[in-house]
């Protein structure tokens, strides 16, 4: 029997439907769980925190949701080795909850996805992200090739990785940068980074490799119809592009 994935809906989440659909199209047994049903969460095998503006992003993106009752099950699950994926706002929540990068001695935020630079505005832009760790470093990326390029959409106002120097060094040394922003040809330079994120980071992973926080949305470029110009031979309704990443996640869950 395949493992059950919970897609969490906080008040203010807005990307739950497409996240759910792509997980399902990639073979995942995924279900939405709303905040008033938090009690159901412990029985799930994996957790996906989708994009949006949970609790209106008051204080700082993800800061309040990180303390929501729903996070009890996520934190317990993460510590027990369940796979946890956060996309965009979900990624911000995982950082605020201290699950990622997890460079401290206790669970506590040591880095944040914060206000974009150089201008502090929301941006919506198509991007490519490149796998920056050994695929096997995380069960979530184990289905990808070395240096795999994934298309996605950056759509955030607070996506710039920021931490103090010591923690940034730890993040880099500890192989916590799971994906970096890249050009479509795979080259990496500052102009590929849409938000001045430190280390060019688009995604972070914890030390154990079971919790991954990715800022851009692979699910918004997840089917061939999302990119009619470069669809190749895929049928227009087939999962494609960003689905590569979701497939790898689902494989990791079902393993």
């Amino acid at each position, binding site marked *: 029997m395949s493992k059950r994935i919970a897609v969490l809906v906080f008040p203010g989440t807005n990307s739950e439907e*497409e996240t759910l659909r792509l997980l399902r199209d990639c073979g995942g047994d995924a279900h939405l769980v709303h905040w008033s049903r938090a009690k159901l969460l412990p029985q799930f095998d994996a957790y996906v925190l989708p994009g*949006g503006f949970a609790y209106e992003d008051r204080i700082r993106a993800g800061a309040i949701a990180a303390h929501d009752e729903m996070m009890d099950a996520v934190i317990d699950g993460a510590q027990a080795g369940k796979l946890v994926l956060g996309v965009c706002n979900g990624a911000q929540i995982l950082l605020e909850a201290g699950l990622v990068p997890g460079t401290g001695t206790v669970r506590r935020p040591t880095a944040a996805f914060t206000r974009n630079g150089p201008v502090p505005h929301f941006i919506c832009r198509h991007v490519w992200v490149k796998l920056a760790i050994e695929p096997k470093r995380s069960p979530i990326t184990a289905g990808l090739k070395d240096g795999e390029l994934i298309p996605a959409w950056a759509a955030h106002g607070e996506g710039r990785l920021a931490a103090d120097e010591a923690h940034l060094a730890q993040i880099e040394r500890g192989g916590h940068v799971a994906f970096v922003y890249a050009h479509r040809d795979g080259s990496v330079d500052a102009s590929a980074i849409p938000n001045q994120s430190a280390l060019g980071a688009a995604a972070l992973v914890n030390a154990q490799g079971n919790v991954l926080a990715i800022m851009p949305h692979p699910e918004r*470029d997840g089917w061939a119809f999302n990119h*009619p110009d470069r669809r190749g031979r895929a049928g227009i309704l087939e999962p494609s592009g960003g689905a590569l990443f979701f497939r790898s996640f689902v494989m990791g869950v079902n393993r």
Partner: protein
Amino acid sequence: MAEVDSLGLALRPDELRKIEEALGRKPSVVELHAFDAQWSEHCSYKSSRHHLKKLPTTGERVVLGPAEDSGILHLGEHRGERYGIVIAHESHNHPSQVVPFEGAATGIGGIVRDVLCMGAEVIAVADPLRFGSIEDGHAHQRYVAQTAVDGISAYGNAIGVPNIAGDVYFDERFDDNCLVNVVAMGIVKESEIIHSYAPKGADGWDMILVGKATDPSGFGGASFSSLTLDAQDEESNKGAVQVPDPFLKNVLMRASYAVFGYLREHNITAGFKDLGAGGIMGCSAEITSAGGYGADIDLDQVNVALEGLAPEVIAVGETQERLIWVVPPDVTPHVLRIYNDEFTLPQIAYNARATVIGKVTAQPRYKLRHRAETVMDVDIEFLTGTIRDELPYEEPQVATSVVDEAPLVTGLQDDELLERVLAHRDVCSREPLYRRYDTVVRGATVIPRGAADAGMLAPVFGSAMGVALSVAGNPRYGRLNARAAGEHAVYEAVRKVVATGAAPIGLTDCLNFGNPRNPAHLGEFVAAIDGLAKAASAFQAPFVSGNVSLYNEAASGKAIPASPIVACVGAIGDVSHAVTSRLKHAGSVLYFVGSPQSALGGSVLIDVLGRHDPRLPRVDYELARAQHALVLEAAQASVLRSARSIGNGGLVVALCEMAFPSLAHGMKPIGVQIDDSWQWTHGAVGRLEALFGEAGGFVVEIAPEDIEAFEGLADDTEGVHEIGVTVEQPVLSFDSEAYDLRRLHHLWSTPLAEVYP
């Protein structure tokens, strides 16, 4: 009248007399406010309704014409279910001029509710914007232009609805009255449409108010928008603007989807309507009277944000994020449970909830009670249905001065013309602005903002059918000729949809004009409707919803250019055939599908030269229909590598915009080499008219192997010209000169980047 004045009402003396006669007594304060709102132009369309009747509103695709909160067009079938596209179009001009962030944000908020209340899932928004000059010395106009965009972005992004179409113009005639028009689109199974009226047998049913706690914000909003703006009233006007809460709306939308599911599952018919102008009173009166009923509302049951609100504030205040349900009493507990317990509205915003506020009555009276007293008791038909105001108007004077028919001589080199046109405020890249809008949330986007002339979605998961959306309305035309501006608004919106491979199936409009009590301004309004009607009939694209925004005039009497703004919905059976506008390969053949005219009036070229020329291009409908049919057939046959419609700046701008995306990092540059224009115009028009004219048409990119197929399709179509090829060098070359594409791109991409960093 002293009383009316002191209450700050817009009711006129003759209207007040009419009310007194009908009631047989002096109206109460609550009644005065109620009539003031309900009889405002904003709610009653009293001076515009009879003119709007001239617009075509019927057709095979029309599921619901302009009668309720939104119109509905048939999109297609999937697994035996018919799907409809719900579409609504509105303005939030006055509020955006006064408090741009909140004004623009609540514009999006309001239009989204109009679509939601039809039982639809909201799938897209669009934002046609008209701002004042943003040049030096226009600090406030620049502030409005920047901040209104922030408001739209903040609201739309948070509720998770992609912004897939829009346009923006800057013109000093909008200095005192910006236009923030908003369009929202939804998808609904046609068997599951919920109407904005109390259904059959609704006598005794509950009226449930859902959403934000009522507060004093937006009190007097309807009548405020039906007056001209006076700078001296700025502070008091601010109080008439509503306060947006996209966070609550996000939850409210999802909770409403859950209620739709419940009703569907139990096969229950209900009524659902958005609270807009006139607040609780306007909504509850319209939803009941539209079903032939009356209403009995207890204002003490309304969830309020603070105690001690006057009954007229509770009754007509326009607090945002509220809707009203009409449901059978045994369904009420389930609706309350979904909103209040499952989606925990009371924990999302202070005292937000679903609550029963009254009953539908068989007796056609509208009654409001407050503290056990009846504060309003009127004939509901009299309140909602009778007001009409036939104002005099004048046929607008269209400049017919004799102009030089000789080809235009500019005295400028081509490179300088090109530079000025590409950097023109109406031409330069819109990317800095729309980058702030989420254009891909919901994961259904096929063509995002900027990738083509229209946005496109695949709105039904598991189905390849698509829907396209475009907007249009050129104020440079509006300044010269209201009737032609109406025709061109339709023609341009239709053309933009066609360029993506989608067939136009219907339209919405927002008619933004000056004071209707000025016969010249009303004359422009009437003429524009004439133009819209003519073009819509010719393209067989009916109007299914719309909005009128009059009084866009400063106290000085300075009014905006005639601004009929149109949105077009397109349908495509399979989004595999969607066409974007970026050039795909070097070595393609480029065709111009269209007919240039010796009419540069209203063009960007004329504007950059500082000339005046009233000769607008004519729309040759027969020719345009044939050209549209060709582009659609070619898209269907997959022979279009790319396509772009020709508009602001003409052919050269269209070519540049098709080529620019190839300059992105990691892409192979693709340039354009165009034959001397006389080779394909055969001297019918001058070279500047051919290169910069805005008479319409398309550029299409065809692979060498598809030329035969394309020319076969084009066989009997007039106005199909092979004009050049795409090349590997990053250049734009025409008339034996090659211009550096990278430099042109720089000129085009920087002007708005300074305004929207």
